[in-house]
């Protein structure tokens, strides 16, 4: 989200109630607007097409396929995006703008190949084992590939720092989704499930087209060296896996519950646990404002202080470097504690509202029993996410990897245990995983603070390091030059 700070600073320049409301709205629209917009559109198509009236099997198949596509496209693109994102950042810093567009194509090819290969067995299973209509399988598969593309391209679009365009493109895409779904059903008499699936696919396809046109318009020059970015996958392996584990950690507790005996199996392919999944969704939305708060703070204040520190390292005395470091970490701790406090208040308010009002609109029973623990768990997940972003600022790939891994591993282990407990404690698995990840990332930041001089000034290589033994220094022996010595 680098760059929204400029806009926010402009908005917050006037210290008025209006500017605060404008800033908060802008941040919300930019950070979580597209997510909310997509969910609202899907919900709207469900309502307007009367999905509640179609058969349970069809309805659940549609919901499951959409759920799976969103989850797995995120898991596939997240590790690729983080690498591409770092590559873009370096290109921009080193002013190698001509490398960006080729890297876009290479990353796209990579993500689509992975998406194609991972999605194919699933699509075949749907068709062969699940006996799902081939058309439905085809549209689902295409939608999966399109969504991978959109999530991938989003990284490049955020690099342009034009967040209004992102929000606008999503808006246009979702309008098309709604309109096409309605048109397909009411004009062309297409079945509701097909109409919704094709509508969403078309909407995201349009978003993708708008994204690529903007990216090509923005990054005009290209040197056609497509493979340059690939070296980053080798250099930044820990970052890639850290991100992969973090993203999987967000969903892995669902996967564990999908494997329990109370799960729902749809067409022998899709495993879900509706009450738990819904509670998880509520838990996530209870805390998602943490991302908005954090992004606003990090982009408006921390980014500048971090820049100040970097400039001090390059051209200041040690005293000034240490002063800048103290200032930076003081602010960092202030921001972490601010997010923790403010988000706690927001989460509690939303939680009280949820438990008060949601039963009246149909949420009851198991969902609401599971919800409290998951609300607490997602609170920790988002706070941990803030720490991960700080670790990203410091290029601490090791810290990111270990945070992601600990979060993932502990969530898996604890969820395997918690799924055997009473429903109130189902969410304990994610909560424990997030607590471990959060704690580790926090202490990692403290560790970095204590060793920051070493970390910034020494944590790099100055020499080309080779695996092989040092070659013999001998160039001449008993009357002859050796070792292919040809300098004579």
């Amino acid at each position, binding site marked *: 989200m680098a760059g929204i700070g400029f806009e926010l600073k402009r908005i917050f320049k006037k210290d008025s109630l209006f500017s605060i409301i404008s800033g908060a709205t802008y941040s919300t629209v930019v950070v979580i607007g597209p997510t909310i917009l997509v969910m609202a559109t899907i919900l709207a198509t469900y309502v307007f097409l009367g999905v509640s009236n179609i058969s349970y099997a069809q309805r659940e198949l549609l919901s499951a396929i959409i759920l799976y596509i969103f989850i797995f496209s995120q898991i596939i693109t997240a590790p690729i995006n983080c690498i591409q994102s770092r590559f873009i950042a370096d290109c921009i810093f080193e002013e190698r703008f001509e490398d960006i567009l080729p890297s876009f194509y290479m990353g796209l090819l990579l993500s689509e190949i992975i998406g194609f290969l991972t999605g194919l067995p699933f699509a075949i299973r749907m068709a062969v084992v699940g006996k799902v209509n081939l058309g439905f399988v085809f549209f689902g598969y295409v939608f999966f590939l399109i969504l991978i593309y959109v999530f991938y391209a989003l990284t490049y679009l955020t690099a342009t720092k034009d967040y209004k365009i992102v929000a606008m493109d999503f808006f246009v895409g979702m309008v098309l989704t709604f309109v096409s779904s309605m048109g397909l059903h009411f004009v062309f008499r297409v079945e509701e499930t097909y109409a919704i699936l094709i509508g969403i696919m078309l909407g995201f396809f349009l978003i993708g087209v708008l994204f690529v046109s903007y990216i090509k318009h923005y990054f005009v020059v290209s040197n056609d060296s497509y493979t340059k970015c690939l070296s980053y996958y080798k250099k930044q392996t820990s970052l890639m896996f850290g991100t992969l584990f973090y993203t999987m950690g967000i969903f892995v507790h669902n996967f564990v519950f999908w494997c329990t005996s109370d799960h729902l199996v749809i067409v022998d392919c899709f495993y879900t646990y509706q009450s738990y999944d819904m509670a998880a969704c509520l838990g996530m939305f209870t805390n998602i404002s943490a991302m908005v708060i954090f992004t606003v703070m990090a982009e408006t204040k921390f980014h500048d202080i971090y820049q100040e520190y970097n400039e001090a390292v390059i051209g200041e005395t040690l005293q000034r470097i240490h002063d800048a470091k103290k200032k930076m970490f003081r602010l960092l701790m202030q921001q972490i504690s601010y997010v923790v406090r403010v988000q706690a208040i927001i989460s509690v308010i939303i939680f009280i509202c949820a438990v008060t009002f949601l039963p009246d609109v149909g949420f009851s029973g198991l969902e609401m029993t599971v919800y409290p623990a998951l609300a607490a768990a997602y609170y920790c997940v988002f706070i941990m996410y803030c720490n991960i972003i700080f670790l990203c600022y410091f290029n601490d790939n090791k810290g990111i990897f270990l945070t992601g891994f600990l979060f993932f591993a502990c969530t898996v282990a604890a969820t395997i245990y918690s799924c055997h407990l009473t429903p109130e404690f189902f969410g304990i698995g994610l909560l424990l995983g997030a607590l471990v990840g959060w704690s580790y990332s926090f202490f990692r930041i403290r560790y970095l603070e204590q060793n920051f001089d070493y970390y910034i000034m020494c944590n790099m290589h100055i*020499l080309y390091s080779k695996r092989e033994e040092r070659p013999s220094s001998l160039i001449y022996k008993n009357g002859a030059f050796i070792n292919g010595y040809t*300098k004579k």
Partner: protein
Amino acid sequence: MRICMIVEGAYPYVAGGVSSWVQQAITNMPEHEFVIITLVASRDDKREIKYTIPSNVSEIHEFYLQDDDYGRSHRRKRSLSPEEYEAFKTLFFGTDTDWDCIFEYFASQKVSLDQLLMSNDFLKMTMEFYKLNYNRVVFSDFLWTLRSIYFPLFSVLASKLPEADLYHCLSTGYAGVIGSYGKYLYKKPLLISEHGIYTREREEEIIKASWVAGTYKDLWISQFRKFSDCAYKYADMVTSLYEGNKRLQIEFGCPEEKIVITPNGVDAAAFSNVPQKDPSDPYINIGAVLRVTPIKDVKTMISAFAIAKEKDKRLKLWIMGPTDEDEVYVAECKEMVSYMQIEDVEFTGRVNVKDYMGKMDFMVLSSISEGQPLVILEGFACHRPYITTNVGDCKGLIYGSFDDYGDAGIVVPVMNTVKLADAMLYMAENEKVRHTMGEIGYKRCKYYDKDQCYGAFKKIYADLIGDPSWQE
């Protein structure tokens, strides 16, 4: 006896000076086996062998001042022990360095230069020193300067040193430290034979250098002083070409009792039948045997010749020596000749001096730095007087350090065009004086005899190794 000779930036890639001495020493001591360690900048540099390698050279090793880091897969990251920390600290910033500890550090493990220079220990000691002495300069500059100062030293110490019966360094500096490392590793004697005074030369170079910021000149200079401290401390014997150098060595911390004066030597007989000047040659030929490089100050010589040539049209200048070491400088010299429209200046390139020296009427050496130039002795061997600048032991050679025969030439101040031109004109106009000076020079050669010189080294080798059989 297996002798390991360690040379920096010279043999067998650079002709003249120290390289010539090495070639002659090895050739004159066929009874010994020689292993050469030649210090060069990096693996990738292009180099050309300038000498025919004598048959008693069994091995030549290249040690690189800048090299990659090897053996990554076999290393563990480890901190320095308290003793090592103190030793490195004194190497970087203190005095009285514990070189034994540093040598042991490199000898006991495969050292990663990358890990050492980027270690927390290195950063900590840099910070300590910075806070005490440099706290107003940009820290990152300071840190990187220190890394660049020590990288070449660590790079050569990380190389595997061949075993020998005796280590003979042709200078202090990096060569001296490697020789000391050899002595530490294999408990074998160490000889330092200095032709110039390495530390003084580096000091002069650093003071003039634009690539070293003013703040850091002291740091660089103090490091080279530490290297010479190490070499002088470990050396069993140090040789010097003449008294002046000996005094400088003592000044730089070498114990006087270790120093022996061993002047250069020339094989005068080898010059006895050199071709002489054609009587019909109308020119008065001035010979300059030197590498065309800034340190030889060829430009001052050309300027002086231009002045002299204006007054005496018979003069002709022969610049004899390699022109491939500093091609830019060579081009500038040639451009100067052409721009100033100076007639009768010949750049012969690398030649066999014996083919030319006898044809010269007198010789010139315009260097701004020298030790005890062999070319002057070769000129003397050809009965030719020399005009030289007052550097190194030139004065001793011209006026006589060991005799009272008289002047074998004229000594002029460094970079003094007018005095050099006057000396050229004086020589040109006074044939009789030239002849007299040439004969004095020839007589003086006996004090700088090749056999005496290399005989002295044979004795030193035998003494150091404890072998009395050399006299038999």
